[in-house]
């Protein structure tokens, strides 16, 4: 019984995936209910998670390989919410595409289940398998479109993803070789006792892990797949990649680095590596984003820059004392803020690009007059991505930069803040085009109900947590308490 209870969320999601596929083939006439089956599975998962929280029953299960702690709970909520939003945003696109609808939703749900496993995994093997479970459906989804661009995106993502997975596996193998365990706490204990003598090997293992995770996070220099895949993949899938897979990479990276590799002599090294990667990602991502005429490519490069912001939290580990986990909680806050913001932006882009059949920023001219709701929603999310108050993006940046200031990384904060200014140029450039440009057509259009629900929910999150950020902040802080020393 215990096992079912612990894996309840994953099981409900996978069950929904199975039902969706079977229902699709048995009742092809009733296809419009498929997304709602998927949503029901996700809601069931969220409710199951809530029932744990209300029982306060935090524990580790399956010989310590899966943890059921506040940290896992936080991410399970995030993943369920992200997937639900993507399902909502996909409905129109899938209906128009017409084919293999059941498989599409089933793959989305499978990714979600993989991500949920990842949230609680604290064993290297479990981590790797969960990561693959979430990755392989994503490769398929990236190539889901009918055009060659989408196929190219899928293939590119698959090949580079395979390389990244193998790097990760090498890193894990080395780590196991040095410490003799795959369980994160045991690794930490082994490093504590005689890790110093294997420092060289550990640094190599760590570098390989960073490379593997860096690919999923989409940080420089592992970012080259991002713009092509974002542009080529169907837009709802790109939205999913930009938020879900990035969040998962950070979820597992924070756990591995804080729980297993938190020893002082190692953390000095990786905090420095992360700081440099963060600075380079922000700068390159922003500079490249400026020149993009295509909004999906622009969002792709901007997601590289945003990943740099996340990394500031990992770099800020050298905070001592009770604030040791400040950087980690900053990452969680940023994940939540970014999920609301970036999904909102993508939902608006999905709706707009379906109407105008173009992803060119220039074609967004005068969107304010054509569809005020979508234009306003997109503008608000872009403002939040820039980090201007009163949006949740502002608080996330503030919180994470504050952690960096406390960790003596003022130089990194300076880089980050200057980058925010650079990013204002292209984010607000889109806003300017939408509000001040002349529309090509006077034909007004409305967003479909599913898009309207998705955009309202995300934009409301951006605004509400922009004014009252405290609940989100305390959730993030509670979640990382398990790493406190």
């Amino acid at each position, binding site marked *: 019984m215990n096992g079912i209870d612990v894996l309840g969320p994953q099981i409900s999601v996978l069950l929904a995936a199975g039902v969706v596929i079977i229902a699709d083939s048995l009742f092809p006439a009733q296809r419009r209910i498929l997304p709602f089956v998927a949503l029901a599975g996700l809601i069931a998962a969220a409710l199951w998670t809530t029932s744990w929280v209300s029982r306060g029953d935090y524990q580790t299960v399956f010989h310590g390989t899966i943890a059921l702690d506040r940290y896992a709970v936080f991410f399970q909520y995030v993943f369920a919410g992200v997937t639900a939003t993507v399902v909502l945003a996909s409905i129109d696109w899938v209906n128009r595409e017409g084919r293999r609808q059941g498989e599409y939703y089933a793959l989305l749900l499978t990714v979600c289940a993989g991500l949920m496993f990842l949230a609680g995994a604290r064993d290297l093997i479990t981590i790797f398998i969960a990561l693959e479970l979430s990755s392989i459906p994503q490769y398929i989804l990236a190539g889901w479109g009918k055009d060659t661009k989408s196929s190219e995106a899928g293939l590119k993502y698959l090949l580079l993803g395979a390389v990244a997975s193998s790097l990760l596996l090498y890193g894990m193998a080395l780590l196991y070789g040095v410490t003799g365990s795959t369980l994160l706490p045991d690794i930490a204990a082994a490093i504590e006792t005689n890790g110093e003598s294997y420092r060289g090997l550990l640094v190599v293992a760590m570098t390989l892990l960073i490379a593997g995770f860096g690919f999923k996070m989409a940080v420089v220099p592992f970012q080259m797949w991002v713009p092509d895949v974002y542009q080529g993949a169907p837009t709802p899938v790109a939205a999913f990649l930009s938020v879900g897979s990035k969040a998962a990479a950070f979820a597992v990276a924070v756990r591995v680095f804080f729980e297993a590799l938190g020893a002082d002599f190692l953390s000095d090294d990786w905090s420095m590596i992360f700081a440099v990667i963060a600075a380079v990602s922000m700068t390159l991502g922003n500079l490249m984003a400026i020149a993009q005429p295509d909004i999906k490519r622009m969002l792709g490069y901007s997601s590289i820059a945003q990943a740099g912001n996340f990394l500031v939290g990992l770099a800020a580990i050298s905070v001592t004392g009770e604030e040791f986990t*400040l950087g980690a909680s900053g990452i969680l806050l940023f994940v939540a803020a970014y999920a609301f913001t970036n999904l909102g932006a993508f939902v608006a882009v999905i709706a707009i690009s379906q109407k105008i059949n173009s992803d060119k920023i220039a074609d967004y001219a005068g969107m304010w007059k054509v569809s005020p709701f979508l234009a306003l929603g997109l503008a608000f999310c872009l403002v939040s991505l820039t980090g201007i108050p009163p949006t949740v993006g502002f608080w996330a940046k503030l919180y994470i930069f504050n952690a960096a200031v*406390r960790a003596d990384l003022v130089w990194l904060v300076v880089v980050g803040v*200057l980058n925010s*200014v650079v990013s204002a140029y292209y984010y607000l450039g889109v806003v300017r085009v939408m*509000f001040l440009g002349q529309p090509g057509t006077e034909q007004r259009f409305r967003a479909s109900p599913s898009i309207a629900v998705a955009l309202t929910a995300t934009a409301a999150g951006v605004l509400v947590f922009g004014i009252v950020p*405290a609940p989100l902040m305390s959730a993030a802080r509670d979640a990382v308490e398990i790493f406190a020393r």
Partner: protein
Amino acid sequence: MELSILIFLPAIAAAVILLLPQRLEQQARWVALVTAAAMFVLSVQMFFQFDRDAGGYQFVERHRWVDIGAFNLQYLVGVDGLSLPLVVLTTCLTLASVLVSFSVTHRPRAYFACLLVLASSVVGVFVSLDLMLFFLFWELELFPMYLLISIWGSGRKEYSATKFVLYTIAGSAFMLIGILVLAFDAQTFDIERLAAAEFQDTLLPLGWVFFLLFIGFAVKLPIVPLHTWLPDAHSDAPTAVSVMLAGVLLKMGGYGIIRLCVTLMPEVAHDWDAWMAGIGAFSVLYGGFITLRQTDVKRLIAYSSVSHMGLVLLGIGALGSTGLTGATYQMLAHGLITGLMFVMIGLMYERTHTREIARLGGLARQMPLIATGMVFAGMASLGLPALAGFIAEVTVFLGAFQRFEWAVLASIVGVVLSAGYILWMLQRVMFGPVRHEWDELSDQRHWWEHTVVAGLAALVVLLGVYPALIMDVIEPAMTTLAARLQA
């Protein structure tokens, strides 16, 4: 309670205006007028209720806002002798801006809503006593300004609006780092507690922190060489926005330097005092010379603002109670005088549709009332005794003379220049041979035009002949600050 009303009343009114049905859209101006008038009355009432002998922050409101570990943010507002007059100035010029906008018919709902949100955020900047709240309002002001300039402006309006926003964001980005470093060291965002804190081993040397904050405010003030956004923003902004921009937004810079740089880091301010005075004097002079070369009336007044705001920095650099009082008084005087000047230029431009000095001339014949108002504003601007500007300039010079004789002498040259460019401008625009192409144009005639011109002119005279009315509020606060600076 009063301060919260001042912040939130215009925001709520803006929402009401946006919700007006289409057929009532021309009535938006009345909602805005009633709101602005109510704000003005309330702030004047506060001005007289303010206890001049007690000093310190009054009308304080304190609520917990975000209270998570390292973050201890409060909704904390209050006014003292420095901020109260600036709040009154803001509400006064908001009222003036609404009045001069009475003829706006292009998307009036959005326009008046933006204007009111702008007023709300500027009041918020002046009354916030929590650094993060201050920063929030500081950024919030960008949204309405961007829209106001880029939608209702003229000329290269989008370019100017974008330039304005990027300059300010760049400045405030530096400011944010400074704020974080200070708040981290003192473990609080409360300005009053920060002022009492001793900063030790901050993450950055305190001098750098001072510099970071100073840059943020200097962009707004603006000082030479960070001033180039100002003429562009002014020349492309609609009249009411020019009034708000010159009248109150520039003052946010001066206010920030006094409230944060000088109050929180007095030792560093001492190290930098000669620099501040020098930059101030240089801005006065440089602004004066550049102004002489302008061919567009609005750009001319914009550059003269650079010159006049240099005096504020000179007064602050003196770091004495007289200098600081003079600087504050100069902010008020400049707000009213330049506000009036932009109103007059706006009235003229509404009729002639050009601001090119070479195309104007002899307008005093066709529009005598507007000419009178503009000559009056010009006289006030060049520092004619018995008007507000004179008192302010003299106080600044008195305060700075003992310490920075050279800077004062240089600034006096700048003041002489101002007489030159103002008189020359008036002569070319209002006097000289009559141009018959303007014969058909009407003079100032609507009640709102009369009200705003007469009202602002009366205040300029009032501040010129009875300075004690306001000095008595400013000076105790500045004396307390100066005493801390000497210690």
